[in-house]
C-alpha cells in the first residue's frame, strides 16, 4: 500500500513538471447528425431504430443510374449553424466525392465537401476556469452524408445496415486554438448548446448524433512550430473526450521525455467503458484504396 502510494506521488510530480514546460495544441472535428426528416440526397426517412435496411431506396443504396438531389432542409440547417458561429457563408459551394471501398458505403464514395465548404472562418466563445472568455476559431463547416453500419461482432459474416446511409451530417472543424482538455470540454459543451438551441441536432453524444475526433500534438512552451500530431477518434462522451485528451497528451510528453518520437497515427476506440486509448494499426486495406475525385484526399473516417 505504502509503496503504491509513493510511486503515484512521484509520477504526479513528474507530470506536473512536464506540464509546466509543455503545452498541447488541440483541434476538434465535430460531426453533428442533423434532425432533418429525410436523408441528405433522397427522400428516405432518417428515423433511428427502424428494422435494418428498411429506410432505403435506389438512391441511398447506390443502385446503378441513380442521382443525388440535395435536401433543402440540410442547407437551411447548416446555414443556421454557420450564422450562429459567426462564419462567412460562401455564395458558391461545391460537393466532392471522398472515394474509398467499404461494404457500408454503397456508392464507393461519400458525398462531402472539400475545396469550397459552405461556411468558413467563424468562432465560438468558451469560458475558462478563471472566468475569462476565449475565442476558438472555426475553420470550416461543411455538409456530408453518413455511411451505413457494419456489424462485425455477431458470430456470422459481417452484416451491413444501410439505414444510416445518406443521413445528413455537418462537420465542424476548429482551428488548433484549444490548449487544454478542459477547453476542449468547454468547446464541445458550447457546440452542444448551439446545435440543440438551433434545433438542428439532438446533441446526444452517447447515441452518436454528436461525434468528436481530436487532433493533438504537444510542444515546448514558447515554440511556434507544431509537433507531430495524432488523431483520436470515436470518443463517445464529453467526459471521455477530456479523459482521452489528458491520456494522449501525457503519453506524448512521456514519449518525448524518454527520447522517443510521436508517430503520426490514428487512435481508435476510446470508449467510455475502457478508459484507455488503443493505437490500432492503420487500416491499410481501406487507406491504400483511397483516391480522390472532385479533389478530396484525406484519410477515411
Amino acid at each position, binding site marked *: 500500500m505504502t509503496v503504491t502510494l509513493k510511486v503515484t506521488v512521484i509520477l504526479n510530480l513528474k507530470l506536473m513538471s512536464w506540464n509546466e514546460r509543455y503545452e498541447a495544441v488541440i483541434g476538434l472535428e465535430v460531426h453533428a447528425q442533423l434532425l432533418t426528416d429525410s436523408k441528405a440526397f433522397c427522400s428516405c426517412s432518417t428515423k433511428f431504430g427502424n428494422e435494418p435496411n428498411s429506410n432505403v431506396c435506389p438512391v441511398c*443504396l447506390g*443502385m*446503378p*443510374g441513380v*442521382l443525388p438531389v440535395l435536401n433543402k432542409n440540410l442547407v437551411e440547417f447548416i446555414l443556421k449553424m454557420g450564422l450562429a458561429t459567426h462564419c462567412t457563408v460562401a455564395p458558391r459551394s461545391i460537393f466532392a466525392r471522398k*472515394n474509398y471501398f467499404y461494404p457500408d458505403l454503397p456508392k464507393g464514395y461519400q458525398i462531402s465537401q472539400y475545396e469550397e465548404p459552405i461556411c468558413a472562418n467563424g468562432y465560438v466563445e468558451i469560458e475558462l476556469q478563471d472566468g475569462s472568455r476565449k475565442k476558438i476559431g472555426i475553420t470550416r463547416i461543411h455538409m456530408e452524408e453518413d455511411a451505413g453500419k457494419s456489424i462485425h461482432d455477431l458470430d456470422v459474416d459481417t452484416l451491413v445496415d444501410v439505414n444510416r446511409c445518406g443521413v445528413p451530417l455537418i462537420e465542424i472543424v476548429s482551428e488548433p486554438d484549444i490548449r487544454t482538455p478542459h477547453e476542449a470540454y468547454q468547446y464541445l459543451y458550447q457546440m452542444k448548446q448551439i446545435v440543440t438551441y438551433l434545433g438542428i441536432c439532438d446533441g446526444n453524444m452517447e447515441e452518436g448524433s454528436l461525434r468528436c475526433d481530436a487532433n493533438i500534438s504537444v510542444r515546448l512552451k514558447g515554440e511556434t512550430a507544431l509537433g507531430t500530431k495524432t488523431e483520436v477518434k470515436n470518443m463517445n462522451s464529453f467526459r471521455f473526450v477530456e479523459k482521452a485528451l489528458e491520456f494522449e497528451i501525457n503519453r506524448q510528453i512521456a514519449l518525448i521525455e524518454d527520447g522517443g518520437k510521436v508517430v503520426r497515427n490514428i487512435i481508435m476506440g476510446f470508449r467510455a467503458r475502457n478508459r484507455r486509448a488503443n493505437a490500432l494499426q492503420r487500416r491499410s486495406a481501406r487507406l491504400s*484504396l483511397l483516391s480522390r475525385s472532385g479533389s478530396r484526399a484525406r484519410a477515411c473516417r
Partner: protein
Amino acid sequence: MKTFDSIRAELDSGKTSCEKITQEYLGVIEQGKRLNAFLAVFPEQSLEQARTVDKKRSAGTAGPLAGMVVSIKDVICVKDARVTCGSKILEHFVSPYDATVVSRLKQADAVIIGKTNMDEFAMGSSTENSAYGRVKLPQDESRVPGGSSGGSAVAVRAGMSTTALGSDTGGSIRQPASFTGVVGLKPTYGRVSRYGLVAFASSFDAIGPLALSTKDAARVLGVIAGHDEHDSTSAEVPVPNYLGALTKDVKGLRVGIPKEYFGSGLEAEVRDAVEKKIDVLRKHGAIIQEVSLPHSEYTIATYYILATAEASSNLARYDGARYGYRAKGANDLMEMYVQSRSQGFGAEVKRRIMLGTYVLSSGYYDAYYRKGQKVRRLIQDDFISAFKNVDCLITPTSPSTSFKAGEKVDDPLQMYLSDIFTTSANLAGIPGISIPCGNDRQGLPIGLQILGKHFDEATIFRVADFLETT
C-alpha cells in the same frame, strides 16, 4: 424500314395497328439475331403495351409517340428488366425502377421493345468490348457498327425499331450513327434527364436518340427533354417545338467550318462528301466561313484524363458487396473486391479505371486532373467565341468509315482517335448531330456532324433536316 411519318400514315388509314407494327419489328429482330444488336427483347411486354396503345388510339387519348417502337441501350434502366451495361459484372442485375427517359417515352405511348448491345459501360468505339459478343454492321458483317451505342444504331439501321436511345460520353451516339448511316443526336449537357442512366463520366454523359430521320430524332427529343426533379443537372430551360424548327430554310444562316477538323488523318472520301454538303448549303444562301478552334489538338488527351477519372469513381460501386457479380472463394474483404472486379470487368474498363485512379491519386492530381479541367475550359471557350460569329459548325463525324472487326482492338490509341471529332462537344457540353452524308466507294456510310450552341438543338435540327431532304 419506316419512319414515324409513314407508320402514322398507315395507322391513320387503318391498314395496321401498333400491335402489328410491334409484331413486325419482333420478327425483324428474330431474323437479324446474328447481328447481335439486342441483349434483351421484351415480346410479351411490348405487345401488351402496343395493345394498350391501340385501345387509346381508338378512344382518341393516345400520346404523341403512339406507333413508335423504341429500343433502349442497355445502360439505361427499364423497370424489372436487366441492365447489364454490356458487362459481366452486372449480368444478373435487374433494375427496380424506370429511367426518366423511359417513363417519358412510355407516357407518350412509345412501345419499348428491348435493350441493345453496347461496349462495356459505354467504353469503346466499335461495340467489340461487350461481354456478350460484338455487334455486326448490317452492310458488311465483318465490320464494326461503331460504338459504344452500336446495338442501338444497328437496331435502327436494320429496321428492328423505329428509333433507339443511346448514350454519348465522347461520341458514342454520333460515331455509330455515322458508321451505320442513321441520324444520331447528342443533346446539350443538361437538356435530357440522366436519372436511370448508369454513369460513366458524369460531367460528359448525355442520352439522345438515334433515328432514320432528323424529324424522328426531333420528335423523341421533344418527349425526353426538359427538367426532371430526380436529376439536379437537368436544366430548367424551356423545351421548344423542335418539329416547328424544321423550316427547310438556311438562307442567311452562318455556318462555321473549323479548319482543325479538316487536317491530316481525315480520309479523302469523307472530306469530299462533307465539302459537297457544305456547297449545297452555300448554294441555298447559307454564309459559310472558316473558323478556328485552336485547342482542338488537346481534345483527346483532355477527354481521356477527365472521363477516366470520373469513371474510376463511378464504377467503384461494382465491388461485389451489394449487387452484381461476386467472385466465389474469397477469404477476406480485399480478396472479394479484387477478385470480383478482376473477373467482372473487361480489359478496356480496367484500363480506364486504372488510368482514372492514377490521375486522381495524390501527387498526380494537379498535374493531370486539375490541368485537364483547365484545358477543358479553354476548349469550351474556343466554341463560345466561335459561336459569336456563326450559328452552327459543320465537321465530319469520324475521320473514317467503318473499320474491320479486330482491326483496332489491340491499339487503344487508334481506337480513341475515331472519336477525335466528337469528344469536343462533350468537353464543351454543346449539342451535336450526325447525319448520313453518302457512302464511300465500298458502300460504307459517311457521317456529317453539325455542332450547335448550348440548348440550340433547334438550329442543328433545321440544318440536318435541310441537308437530308434537299
